[in-house]
């Protein structure tokens, strides 16, 4: 199997879907002539031309709205946000137009579109440009929210997103673009709403998604040396969430740590914990703990940024605590 970067896996998915269906088109800031701010659309302008790979002005609300209109008349737009931090300006189109169109038109308008771009923190981009938005977006009925953490899932989920008739929020990561992994060629589809057990162990469940999957895998490696074997449940989709996969794991291990990139209050993890207390109450041997960003805007200073982010050390500490080892 070919080893690709997360970035190239996304490009491959875009190319294959652009070839497969001529209603699919990509638009956003710098996606065409500049080949994408993060080069995800590299080479696509040359191959598909300016009608299908469209550069937009710096107007997030405007081009998101154009995308909604295009979807209403039967096209299948992919709207790239340079980062999801900038997408805040477009939330009215995402939340009030795209997410509600099918419902409020009495089923007359489907909304087959994808909003995609990097989410969460990179390195030293400070408070306004280091935010993980999945819990905001997953709060909205009508949206599907995808958070691939590996190149293979990035490709398989993007293809599913483009083929879906509903508005899909697709959250990538600047720090993920260079991550390498095996990616199946051609028709590789990862279904929306299905989690994957990325590592199997009996002692504790770590439930996570997106960029934090890599952290969880490192934790699994480190703890395995101490004889502690953890289940790593990669949600992959945070809305709809695969509750069965979560329960299966927690019912086996009797304890869980929920790891996410965003903040604590109303974070994705609070929803996971709610599912666990409901589905696994009699299986729990310890309270479920959460690992997340500290409750501050992301600091610019390198040392403070490191301290504010969730990481392997904090995750190990939480695991040891729910196992009553500390």
């Amino acid at each position: 199997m070919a080893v690709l970067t997360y970035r190239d896996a996304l490009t491959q998915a875009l190319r294959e879907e652009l070839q497969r269906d001529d209603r699919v088109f990509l638009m956003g800031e710098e996606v065409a002539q500049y080949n994408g701010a993060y080069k995800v659309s590299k080479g696509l302008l040359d191959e598909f031309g300016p009608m299908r790979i469209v550069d937009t002005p710096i107007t997030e609300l405007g081009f998101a709205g154009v995308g909604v209109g295009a979807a209403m008349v039967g096209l299948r737009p992919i709207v790239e946000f340079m980062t999801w931090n900038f997408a805040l300006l477009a939330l009215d189109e995402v939340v009030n137009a795209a997410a509600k169109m099918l419902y409020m038109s009495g089923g007359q308008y489907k909304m087959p579109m994808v909003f995609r771009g990097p989410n969460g923190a990179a390195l030293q981009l400070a408070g306004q440009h280091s935010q993980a938005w999945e819990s905001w977006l997953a709060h909205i009925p009508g949206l599907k929210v995808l958070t691939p953490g590996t190149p293979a899932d990035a490709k398989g989920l993007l293809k599913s997103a483009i083929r879906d008739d509903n508005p899909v929020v697709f959250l990538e990561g600047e720090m993920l673009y260079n991550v390498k992994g095996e990616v199946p060629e051609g028709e590789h589809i990862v279904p929306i709403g299905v989690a994957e057990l990325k590592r199997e162990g009996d002692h504790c469940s770590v439930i996570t998604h997106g960029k934090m999957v890599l952290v969880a895998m490192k934790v699994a490696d480190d703890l395995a040396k101490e004889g502690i074997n953890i289940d790593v449940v990669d949600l992959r989709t945070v809305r709809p969430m695969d509750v069965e996969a979560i329960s299966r794991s927690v019912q086996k291990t009797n304890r869980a740590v929920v790891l996410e990139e965003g903040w604590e209050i109303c974070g994705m993890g609070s929803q996971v914990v709610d599912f666990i207390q409901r589905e696994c109450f009699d299986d729990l041997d310890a309270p479920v703990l959460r690992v997340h960003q500290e409750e501050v805007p992301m600091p610019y200073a390198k040392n403070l940024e490191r301290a504010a982010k969730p990481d392997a050390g904090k995750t190990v500490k939480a695991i040891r605590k729910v196992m009553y080892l500390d």
Partner: protein
Amino acid sequence: MATKVVMEALSPTMEEGRLVKWNKNEGDQIKSGDILAEVETDKAVMELVARGDGVLRKRLANEGDASPVGTLLAVIAAPDENIDSIVGSAGAGAGASGQAAQSGGASQSAGSAAQAVADTKESTSKSAVPQAPAQSQGEASTPPQQKAGGQGAPPSAAPRPAPGAPSRPAAPRPPAAAAPAAPKGNGSSRPAAPAAGGRQRSSPLARRLATERGIQLGGIQGTGPGGRIVKRDIENAKAAGVAAGRSAAAARLATEGDFKDVALTQIRKTIAKRLTESNGPIPTFFLTAEFDATRAAELRIQLAEMGDEYKASFNDIVIKAVALALAEHPEVNAHWLGDKIRQFNRIHVAMAVAIEDGLITPVLFDADQMTLWDISAKARDLAGRARERKLMPEEYTGSTFSVSNLGMFGIDQFTAIINPPETGILAVGRAEDKAVFVDGQVVMRKRLRLTMSCDHRAVDGAVGARFLQTLGRMIENPLMLVY
């Protein structure tokens, strides 16, 4: 703060208990863990332990009274504390014991009912101790019409603990160990809540496992934060066996006049209920076979000659043979579960033991894995403790097949009644000398009659017969038992 003493579920199947004897009098100083009374459950006499400190202010049940689980039996409180409301509410919760009279009797007017509810509310708020979770749940699920006068008061003062998982757990809690601090680095601003009145903490999983295994949480020291009982504590308790002995047997009642009325004991009620259940709905058939037990008898003599510690009874030999035969016939080592038959891979043989006022069936777990010597020693131990009524609930539950032996009473053969959900039981008669033909000659042989009762819903005639055949081969060739 007042502590209510209620009839606790002391065995997995207990629904009511009879108060055999009070060990403490009103006015006695009580410490948590003191033995307040002896309670006869459906199987054994167990101790009722104090869950709080103070003075035994009021005893609400008399010796000999039977009360459903959850009934208020007594109140422990400070010497000057007002316990009227708790005592007054006694009838409202269980509605069984004579205390109902105190809160208005059977014909309560609407006004006095409201009064009782109001009392209840006051009492629950006073005895903040363990009811907090149970109560909030009760409140949430109480239909509005049950709430009196729009007060929103919970209707019951005596929440019924789940069997085996008392909702009023014991007091012992490491004194200095505060509640677990919120994990650092978790950004949590929740303060560590102090334990309410010495409630013993346990994880939901630990409570579930304790219920499943018939373990009392009260006797376990938790090793989690703040003394929380966690999974590993239950597993360790299971291994060690939580001590829960009993003291004296029930006092004999003096007899007067020409006749004696004998009250139905809990065990007698249970036997009646269970056996009626058995002979009614279970379509039972019986298979009897006579086997040559001469070699088994010789084996017994040889073992006895080796010394007392090697002695084995006929019953031990039969149990060993049954266990090995069951291993070859799993279709007989089964439970009938209504919608399915569960065949067990492990073999747990129960043996019926006669005790003073009934019988009990202690279990030899994994009997097929035990040597004859193991079985002999364990059977002696179990029978001895059964007669003293000192068995733990987990020692007389969980069997997959049963053996009943009346040979020692000179019974040639009999039919035993199946202990549901098991699907078979073996009745063992006496081994007696008989004249039989062997190779055309009349010779004297030890002969043993075995009768198997089979639940035809699970076991067909041929299946039972093949099992008996295997069993007979083992008994006639006892070397197979040690091979």
